[in-house]
């Protein structure tokens, strides 16, 4: 017999009551009159010294009533064979997700995680299906379901453990959301297959740090029937602070030697809040620890769970500063930030035209304003009169050459040579008289320009936003060019020009911007000017981006970023000059021809791109979120719709609950308590009758004795 509320059985202790009551010599109810109580003290009730229970039958009845009542309240039920749970015996399909992010490098975490993962694998039954995925920024299958099924059932665990043994934590961030989505999809994939519909679960072995990204789960509907079991690994050390370089944006106006701003993030559970921060030298060969501080480190006070930005002065007259280190916490993996000091790019633009420099009606005036100097880029505009001979130095230095007025045929031929050699020419004829020069430049001398005068105004009607020049405007928010009115333009028939690509057309159908490839270079032809006399282009918001776009296309300035996180794809310079990448450690990696990006940023440090005119360096840093090593809030995953079956203890609790539910069900069916209560009442009735009879008997006897 089992009990739903066994605590009520403690009521059985009340049995002591009647026993003691029966042992106590019954306090007589007889009253004895006495002359005075002034010399008497009340006597305490005494236990019978004879240890003789009086009225045994009454005692038994009273005890029985109490015991039956206690049993009834404990809600007894007879255990029956549980109803077979059809899903219980079925093989499970599970995906074991092993976190390999940088935060797993913390002391003891990885070893514990691997041990836990191995334990989970060893628990797998012969019919179970298990896949193992490692994840950091992305999830990669170590053992897929196919691998698992292919292996002999006896070897599966060993096979998976072997794969697991080869795994080590990476330096990448934790994109937990992605990993969970991948795992859930892997479980959902074989739905239509012949596999049994057993329970499906994702087992997550992770340190479950607060910095894990879950955003991928927000737009994902978690498949029904897939539950998540979280095996959280606890770190030995809780104090962890990380340092990140706060990169300035491209529009930043900060001076190059201004203090560098770094952000220090302290984990929420940290025990310490005082750290040292400073520039360090490269570690000694064979050592992983950062080198000594260069110059005086600064004190960084960051309370747990907060992050603060500190301005770290750049020591003067020290070359090759590239890393900032943090000292004073327990974990080293996130204590170094790599920094490439910003440098100003320089470009030269050659303007061939008859403009007076400061004439506000001339195009050059607006061009100079468009290329105003910033701390990051300085563009030098060299103006040259159409009649003046071309200076080779100017031509060599110029990244892009603008031609606005007709030049001599020789000059035009020389410019065409430059274009063929790889320069970019932008032709913006001021009038139809430019025709012969354009013909020479394009290699089609018969080409003619005719002045067009639209009745009212013309506007750009058809723009090829696929073209790199207009790609920045492709967004619908920026793609409206109809506000720009053109009062004058030149008609150009490009049908005969080989390779000519009309990038923009006027509403009359005439080309507005034409790109003509020439050898290694290219020539852009603008059929209208931007000066106010001809159009509103110069005063529109599109002008400056368009000019910069032209300069970038010409290779004058690169938008090459220098700060990346581990795992980011590095966009290589558009000119395709980079041939190899030298990572912080190990041999250089050759790049494929015309490679647009480099993805193997596997470790933090300074990388160098070789092959260009000058080597380009970029820094790869740890994901800033990896420093947030405090555990993730318990309900965060559940809020995102992931049904979390907690740890083993929870599983035990769940099974206990199940047993309890079965108990409640059985008890409800049997309702044995009613019998016990009925029996109690019956016993009490008998007891009352017996007690009444016992009490009456002495009285009767007395009456008989004294008739």
């Amino acid at each position, binding site marked *: 017999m089992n009990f739903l509320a066994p605590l009520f059985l403690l009521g059985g202790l009340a049995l002591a009551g009647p026993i003691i009551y029966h042992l106590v010599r019954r306090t*007589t*109810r*007889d009253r*004895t*009159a006495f*002359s*005075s109580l002034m010399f008497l003290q009340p*006597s305490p009730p005494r236990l019978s010294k004879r240890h003789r229970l009086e009225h045994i039958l009454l005692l038994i009845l009273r005890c029985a009533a109490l015991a039956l009542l206690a049993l009834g309240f404990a809600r007894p039920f007879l255990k029956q064979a549980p109803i077979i749970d059809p899903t219980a015996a079925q093989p499970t399909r599970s995906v074991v997700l092993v976190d390999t992010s940088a935060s797993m490098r913390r002391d003891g975490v990885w070893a514990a995680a691997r041990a836990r993962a191995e334990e989970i694998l060893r628990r797998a039954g012969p019919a179970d299906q298990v896949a193992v995925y490692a994840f950091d920024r992305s999830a990669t299958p170590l053992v897929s379901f196919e691998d698992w099924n292919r292996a002999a059932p006896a070897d599966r665990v060993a096979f998976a453990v072997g794969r697991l043994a080869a795994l080590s934590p990476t330096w990448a961030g934790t994109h937990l959301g992605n990993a969970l989505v991948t795992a859930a999809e892997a479980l959902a994939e074989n739905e239509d297959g012949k596999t049994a519909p057993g329970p499906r679960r994702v087992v997550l072995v992770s340190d479950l740090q607060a910095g894990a990204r879950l955003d991928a789960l927000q737009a994902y509907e978690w498949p029904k029937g897939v539950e998540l079991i979280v095996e959280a690994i606890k770190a030995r050390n809780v104090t962890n602070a990380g340092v990140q370089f706060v990169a300035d944006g491209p529009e930043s106006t900060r001076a190059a030697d201004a203090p560098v701003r770094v952000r220090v993030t302290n984990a929420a559970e940290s025990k310490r809040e005082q750290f040292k921060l400073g520039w360090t030298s490269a570690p000694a060969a064979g050592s992983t620890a950062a080198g000594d501080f260069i110059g005086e480190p600064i004190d960084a006070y960051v309370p747990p769970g907060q992050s603060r930005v500190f301005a770290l002065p750049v020591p003067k007259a020290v070359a090759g500063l590239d890393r900032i280190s943090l000292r004073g916490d327990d974990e080293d993996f996130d204590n170094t930030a790599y920094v490439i000091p910003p440098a100003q790019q320089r470009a030269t633009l050659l303007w061939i035209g008859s403009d007076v420099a400061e004439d506000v009606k001339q195009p050059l005036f607006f061009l100079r304003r468009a290329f105003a100097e910033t701390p990051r880029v300085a563009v030098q505009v060299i103006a040259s009169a159409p009649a003046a001979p071309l200076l080779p130095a100017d031509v060599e230095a110029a990244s892009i050459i603008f031609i606005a007025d007709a030049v001599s045929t020789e000059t035009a031929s020389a410019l065409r040579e430059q274009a063929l050699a790889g320069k970019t020419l932008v032709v913006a004829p001021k009038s139809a008289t430019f025709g012969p020069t354009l013909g020479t430049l394009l290699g089609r001398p018969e080409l003619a320009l005719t002045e067009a005068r639209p009745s009212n105004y013309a506007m750009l009607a058809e723009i090829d936003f696929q073209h790199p020049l207009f790609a920045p405007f492709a967004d619908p928010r920026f793609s409206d060019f109809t506000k720009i009115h053109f009062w004058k333009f030149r008609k150009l028939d490009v049908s005969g020009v080989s390779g000519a690509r009309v990038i923009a057309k006027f509403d009359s159908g005439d080309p507005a911007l034409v790109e003509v490839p020439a050898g290694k270079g290219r020539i852009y032809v603008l059929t209208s000017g931007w000066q106010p006399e001809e159009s509103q282009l110069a005063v529109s918001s599109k002008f400056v981006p368009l000019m910069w776009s032209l300069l970038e296309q010409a290779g004058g300035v690169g938008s090459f970023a220098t700060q990346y996180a581990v795992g980011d794809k590095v966009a290589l310079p558009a000119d395709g000059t980079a041939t190899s990448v030298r990572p912080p450690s190990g041999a250089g990696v050759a790049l494929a021809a015309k490679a647009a990006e480099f993805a193997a940023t596997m470790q933090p440090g300074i990388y160098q791109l070789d092959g260009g005119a000058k080597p380009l360096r970029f820094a790869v840093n740890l994901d800033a979120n990896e420093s947030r090593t405090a555990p993730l809030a318990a309900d965060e995953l559940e809020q995102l719709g992931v049904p979390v079956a907690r740890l083993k203890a929870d599983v035990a609790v769940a099974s206990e609950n199940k047993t309890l539910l079965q108990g409640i069900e059985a008890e409800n069916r049997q309702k044995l308590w009613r019998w016990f209560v009925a029996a109690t009442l019956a016993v009490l009735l008998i007891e009352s009758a017996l007690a009444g009879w016992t009490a009456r008997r002495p009285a009767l006897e007395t009456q008989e004795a004294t008739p």
Partner: protein
Amino acid sequence: MSAAPSTPALASAKLIDPQALMSIRSLELRARAVVEGFWSGMHRSPYHGFSVEFTEYRQYTPGDDPRYLDWKVFARSDRYVIKKYEDETNLRVHLLADLSRSMDYGSRGYTKATYAATLAATLGYFIHLQGDAVGLMTFDEKVREYLPARHRVGHLRQLMLALEKPAAGRATDLASPLERITSLIRKRGLVALISDFLAPLDRLERNLLTLSAGGHELTVFHIVDPAELNLGIEAAAVFEDVESARTLYIDPAAARDAYMKKFAAHTEALRAICRKLGASYQQLSTADPLEIALFEFLQQRMRRGRLFRRAGAVGTGGRS
């Protein structure tokens, strides 16, 4: 304590068992039975009671009352002689009988009140027979009945009727009857206080002192039930105070020692008060024959009489 007859004379006398005596309904008959039995025993006694008693002759001097001249002596010897004797007929005895509820207890089939009433009746009857005046005051927490000391026809009857009234009061208050009697009796006399004294004794001494100072002679009869002496109840029970109706669970086996100590202390305190005031103290168990009380009373009187004579308080109209 006189639980048994102590004197040889008394031992040889035929005493009436109180149990038998109390079964006599009439109080007067009971008193008569005791006194007459006692009277018959008295013939063999060397004592003569305190009847008019001759003491000595002395020479007549002019101014003496010629009524007291002994003419027979003059006839024989031709001398005028004055006959001198003690005159005790003017004795006034006041019986103070406690009839409170505590007296309404008895373990022998009759109560202390019955015993006390019988004692009072016996004394009254005896004194009446002697020709002395006897008065009665019954009290509980206040004075119930009062009969002034007289010696006349019918007075004894009234006294018996007053004694036969059942005990009605609840508490025992010794102070107020004593104060009352002090204010009531101006003439000196004998005050016999019959009570169980189951009340605090703190004011008793002062009240008795007032009486004593007023020239009254004091005799205290302390009536106890044999069950009160040794807590003679065997079974544990809820004891109910007959006066206050207060109840206590008492196990006599456990409580007896403490009770007896306290009771003895109380008795001793009472005895000490009596000793201090020169009052005679007599503890009477209700199992004791009443003759003992009467005998002790008389003996006490005789002793005091001798005491007085020795002190030289002599003269006509003198009293003991």
